[in-house]
């Protein structure tokens, strides 16, 4: 089992998704995983950089990996799937052409730092069994559905994690946390992503569909592992209600928050109160 | 002139440099430092003769190369009738003036055996003969016997100059080189300055002292009939050779072993006929075409080796043992078979029985 | 370094190819049928199976002066004789790792798997290997005499 990983929070976790960052740190602390900060880390470049110049995108993300490598770490964990994609791309690019990295940044890097998501860390490195054993406050009689979004498992050859179309990692982790997990067909449907800024109606429709399905299968809450998904489902839930004339009231928690709660970490530490949709009902015993 | 010269240690290379202009000079030299391997090699300026340690391989190959091309041949097709062809033969000789410098008496004496076989009798071996005629021997009066040496046991000794053209006598500060044959004397006289009377006397003294040494305890001549009596005593031979691994090193290092085989090596339309060393210790040596082998085991083969040297050869060549007592076979044998002991026991136990 | 200077620098490169009858010989045929352009340095010896390869044949070729030796057979699992190439693979890999220890350029020897249908792959293999050999230049062969040699000490 991994005991020590480099931690790359990414920009969202510094701002909008600060509660994700908090819950990741708290959970890893409790689970005995040391998160080593990457000194002077920089933005992964996100979508704009690689749209402009693939090498720029790869170099931006790769710099963080190279620093981690120079710290003697060969695994970097990030909570954000988009950052993860950028980091993995960097690995792929510079594994084939390490000299380019040296040219651009003057430091060596040959794409040999493994990048994983926090979900991957929890599922593959720690495992549902260990988590189940550590659970103190199981979500009894609650139904929580996992929502994976687009990037965590796809494209399959790139993600190399879980089933691309019917992932089950979060399902297992939620079960470990004591909640029931109904079959949720929309677990990998698109939430609309960044179109929330430019074409909000698309997000309303797509996110609404996900929320609709969650409600239809009787979910008490949704679990997510992506800051952007969380934003669309949680922060924009009110907008969705208005746009679609609905009255969804589904809490949307990060998987780290759900497991954290089950492990008995206090909700404030996990940043539960920062969520837009109130979670009180979820924590009342039925 | 006296036919003697003195060469100081530091003048030896100069002398060899001079000689190597007229001769192909062979000297014992260090071939590999790591394993301390000394063998005869062609002198070239800068190479140092090893005159205080015995060479592991004998100088046999100088007159009898391990592989000797006898002639080259080419098939030539008749253009009109390609089924017919003629053969072009080309003789091959490599026999310029040669000097062997620093061989030991046993080394030089080894060629006596060759002379009997290759030069006496109805047919002469022209390849050997031409080399022999063109080769001079400057032989070292030997000071370096060890536990395997037994030259005195075979009628020789550390100062035996049979077959030598010059004697190289180590004295304080250098060597006195003395011409023994006409050719030797002639070469010596043109190669340096005479020794001082003291040096000449020291050399004489050294020769005398060395000649008085008895290297080897027993006389190993005169065993010809003992072997004949022992011939069918297979228990005796089994006892002697059970450790033998039939590697044939004894024959390879031996200055008197002259067995060879002749083969053609051809490719395409041309090739050459060559003579190469062979060893009576090998199974294939006596293997007949049909598959029968008159010497199928190491017992028969080793018996032949001892018998040839100490019985058949002396019977044919006036009692001359075809062994020079250099001890190389004993020294290099991986399983330390001691030919002296074998020969001695031919008689001892045979006497017991009688 | 006598024979090094003897070696004619301009002489034609010759590569010995040992091809199994069932796959690679057929692959080379297919490449020919498809008129896939290839360098002409290769001289093919047809063998029934790469299992027929004794690594000593490769050594012999190199010592005799082959500039390159290429062995090609059926893909693993596709051997016409079921397992010949599995044996060959081990033996050739041992040889390949061993050659540089004796001072041979191991790049002069390559083994590969090409099926009878892979004409194009055969073309690539031959082209690539020939280029490698041309880069290495003619095989200088062994020196027939050695004047000075490095000493190695283990004591």
């Amino acid at each position, binding site marked *: 089992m991994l005991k020590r990983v480099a931690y790359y929070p990414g920009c969202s976790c510094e701002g909008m998704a600060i509660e994700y960052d908090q819950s990741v740190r708290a959970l890893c602390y409790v689970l005995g995983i040391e998160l080593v900060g990457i000194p002077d880390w920089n933005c992964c470049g996100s979508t704009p950089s690689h749209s402009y110049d693939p090498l720029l995108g790869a170099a931006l993300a790769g710099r963080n990996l190279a620093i981690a490598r120079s710290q003697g770490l060969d695994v970097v964990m990030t909570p954000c799937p988009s950052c993860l994609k950028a980091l993995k791309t960097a690995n792929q690019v510079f594994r084939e052409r390490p000299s380019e990295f040296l040219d651009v940044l003057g430091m060596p890097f040959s794409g040999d730092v493994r990048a994983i998501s926090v979900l991957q860390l929890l599922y593959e490195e720690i495992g549902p069994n260990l988590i189940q054993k550590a659970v103190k406050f199981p979500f009894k009689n609650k139904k929580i559905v996992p929502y994976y979004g687009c990037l965590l498992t796809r494209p399959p050859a790139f993600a190399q994690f879980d*089933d691309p*179309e*019917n*992932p089950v990692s979060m399902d297992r982790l939620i079960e470990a946390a004591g909640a029931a997990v109904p*079959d949720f*067909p*929309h677990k*990998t449907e698109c939430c609309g992503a960044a179109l929330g800024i430019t074409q909000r109606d698309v997000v309303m429709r797509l996110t609404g569909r996900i929320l609709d*399905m969650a409600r239809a299968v009787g979910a008490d809450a949704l679990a997510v592992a992506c800051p952007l998904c969380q934003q669309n489902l949680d922060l924009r839930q009110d907008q969705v209600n208005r746009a679609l004339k609905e009255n969804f009231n589904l809490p949307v928690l990060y998987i780290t928050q759900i497991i954290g709660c089950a492990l008995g970490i206090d909700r404030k530490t996990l940043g539960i109160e920062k969520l837009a949709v109130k979670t009180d009902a979820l924590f009342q015993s039925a | 002139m006296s036919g003697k010269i003195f060469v100081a240690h530091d003048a030896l290379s100069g002398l060899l440099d001079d000689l190597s202009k007229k001769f192909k000079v062979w000297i014992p030299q260090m071939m590999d430092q790591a394993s301390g391997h000394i063998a005869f090699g062609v002198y070239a300026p800068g190479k140092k003769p090893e005159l205080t340690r015995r060479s592991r391989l004998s100088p046999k190959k100088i007159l009898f190369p391990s592989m000797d091309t006898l002639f080259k041949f080419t098939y030539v*097709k008749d253009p009109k009738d*390609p*089924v017919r062809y003629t053969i072009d033969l080309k003789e091959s000789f490599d026999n310029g003036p040669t000097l062997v410098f620093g061989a030991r008496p046993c080394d030089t004496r080894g060629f006596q055996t060759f002379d009997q076989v290759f030069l006496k009798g109805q047919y002469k071996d022209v390849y050997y003969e031409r080399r022999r005629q063109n080769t001079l021997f400057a032989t070292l009066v030997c000071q370096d016997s060890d536990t395997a040496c037994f030259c005195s046991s075979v009628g020789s000794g550390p100062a035996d100059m049979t077959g030598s053209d010059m004697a190289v006598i180590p004295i304080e500060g250098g060597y006195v080189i003395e011409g023994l044959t006409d050719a030797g004397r002639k070469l010596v006289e043109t190669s340096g300055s005479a020794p001082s009377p003291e040096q000449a006397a020291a050399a004489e003294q050294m020769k005398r002292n060395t000649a008085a040494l008895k290297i080897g305890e027993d006389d190993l001549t005169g065993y010809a009939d003992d072997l004949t009596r022992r011939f069918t005593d297979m228990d005796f031979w089994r006892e002697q050779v059970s450790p033998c691994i039939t590697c044939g090193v004894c024959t390879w290092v031996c200055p008197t072993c002259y067995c060879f085989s002749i083969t053609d090596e051809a*490719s*395409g339309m041309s090739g050459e006929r060559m003579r190469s060393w062979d060893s009576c210790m090998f199974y294939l040596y006596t293997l007949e075409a049909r*598959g029968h082998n008159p010497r199928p085991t190491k017992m028969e083969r080793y018996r032949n080796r001892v018998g040839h040297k100490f019985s058949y050869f002396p019977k044919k060549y006036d009692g001359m043992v075809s062994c020079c007592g250099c001890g190389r076979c004993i020294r290099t044998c991986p399983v330390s078979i001691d030919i002296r002991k074998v020969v001695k026991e031919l008689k001892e136990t045979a006497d017991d029985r009688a | 370094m006598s024979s090094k200077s003897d070696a004619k620098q301009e002489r*034609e490169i*010759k590569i*010995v190819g040992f091809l199994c*009858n*069932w796959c690679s*010989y*057929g692959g*080379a*045929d297919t490449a*020919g*049928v498809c*008129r*896939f*352009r*290839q*360098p*002409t340095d290769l*001289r*093919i*010896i*047809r*063998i*029934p*199976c790469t*299992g*027929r*390869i*004794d690594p000593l*044949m490769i050594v*012999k070729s190199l010592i*005799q002066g*082959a500039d390159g030796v290429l062995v090609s057979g*059926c893909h693993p*699992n*596709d*051997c*016409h*004789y*079921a*397992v*010949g190439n599995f*044996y*060959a693979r081990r*033996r050739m890999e041992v040889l390949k790792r061993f050659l540089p220890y004796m001072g041979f350029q191991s790049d002069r020897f390559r083994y590969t798997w090409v099926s009878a*249908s892979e004409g194009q792959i055969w073309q690539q293999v031959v082209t690539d290997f020939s280029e490698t050999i041309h880069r290495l230049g003619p095989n200088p062969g062994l020196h027939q005499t050695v004047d000075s040699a490095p000493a190695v000490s283990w004591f």
Partner: protein
Amino acid sequence: MRIGVFICQCGTNIAGTVDTRAVAKKAMEFPDVVFAVDYMYTCSEPGQKEIQDAISSHRLQGVVVAACSPRMHEPTFRRAVKKAGINPYMFEQANIREHCSWIGTDREANTRKAIDMVRMSVEKLRRNQALFSTQVAVNKRVLVIGGGVAGIQAALDCSDGGLEVVMVEREPSIGGKMAKLDKTFPTIDCSSCILGPKMVDVAQKENIRLYAYSEVEAISGYIGNFKVDIRKKATYVDWNACTGCGECTQKCPSKKAFDHFNEGLGATTAINIPFPQAIPKKARIDSDYCRYLTGGKCRVCEKICPVKAIRFDMKDEIVTEEVGAIIVASGYDLFDARVYGEYGGGRYPDVISAMQYERILSASGPYGGHIRRPSDGREPKEIVFISCVGSRDISVDRPYCSGICCMYIAKQAIMTRDHIPDSNCYVSYMDIRAPGKGYDEFIRRAQEEYGVKYIRGRVGRIYPRGDRLVVQGADTLLGVQVEIEADLVVLATGVECSAGARPLAEKLRISYDQHGFYMESHPKLRPVETNTAGVFLAGVCQGPKDIPASVGQGSAAASKVQALFSRDTIETDPQVAHVNENMCIGCGKCEQVCPFGAIRMKTLRDGSRKSEVLETVCQGCGLCNATCPNKAIQLRHSTDDQILAEINTLFD
């Protein structure tokens, strides 16, 4: 030796880039060559005549032809020289076409290369020996592995030809996949009506010995003389006694056994007869479900059986059959739809495979031929068929087209519309592949006559909404997203190699492609032969195909066997290993590595061990030759000296 060298110009195929005249001239300089000439078409009738004339006029003892690949014309030239009185193995062919003239245009380099190749051939020929085949008797019995339609056809054809046939079928009944089908395309024939009589024939033919519920355990030997160990798996019922009356199946209290024949739709009893038309129609106990075999109590069937055929102590049994040829018709498996998580196969009961649907359609199926949903038994009205599930998809390692799905979907849609006229059938497809006779017409009928709605595009997701399934996909012709609320989704699962294909191939010593389908000798010209003499292929084990093609291959394989068996003996290939006993040291390494068990050790009178080659078993791979430390065992026609001569002559 007197050698003649013949350089073929092959029209301009060779002469275009090789100076054949110069090659012939140079060849005259080679040792033993007494005649060399170039010729326009050496393989032609007059070309062969030229060789034969030269053999007699120059009294040649060996012939080198430099021409095309020996894989092409070696047999031709060997026959030609044999006719002129030379042993066929005193012939060598230099491949100066495929390996020389066709791969480059540098005439000088090509000519140099051709000269080298001729030189190598001459040097090899100088070391050739006349070799002679031996005759071995052919055991005129044939083994058919697999009792699907291809195997049945092969067996019946062989049987009709008077051959004794041994058929081995893995399942309790023959019939294969076809027996499960309701109808066949494009004629909508009743599958069991056309297959049934053939199955009965197999049972009734006296010269067919059927081993059902059996598998091939081991195969040894060689063409004409194979020895096959067959594992008869324990059925716990003495089939000699069982009459197939079915009493036991009525009374068996364990009624939840997995129904293999019905693809798991519904259940069967622990002791069962797979289907009414089964051949042999014998009961078998499924040991996973039998109460007695799992729990130690029950034995109801034993009490009820009127002929006392139940044998609870039955064990697997190995029987050995000797045959002269083998037809492999081991069939295929269907792709496991669960691999596609987005379709929910295996999770949603109303997402089913096409074979399950076939059982639903079948009158002998679990629902008696009434179309119902597995989940609630309701008659579906909206039915979506999804094609290419496990075909033409690199991401699941199935890049090939299964070839039959487009057609059976059309058939099933037509059948559905027949059964439920007010239903809607949708087919989501990538391309329609209907190249057979009457096939495309059949698809058109489905579309035009039966109103099946074809939507070009892949389905992205299936999820339940209420008790129905939402099928989300795209219509790439209209460029819109499509969402259909369906009652039933049928996945057209593709064809993949049978799970046991690879181990069986290793027993047969035949090769298979990367997807596990067996390799034929030549994709065009030898489609049912394998590279292992005496082993033939039929049906889908060689690659996806439909029923007529499988039946065709079954007949083709049978005719190959009959051609083989039309002779009483066959000639063995003399290019086999040979031991020089004088050199052999008896180390046994050759015996250890021989893939064919063709070498055994013997002890001579003097006590020395020597190896010995069983020449009829030896396949001539030469592994022993490469392994033998002192080369006492030599592969004839590929000896060390021959190979070394080829190497040496290049570097003289």
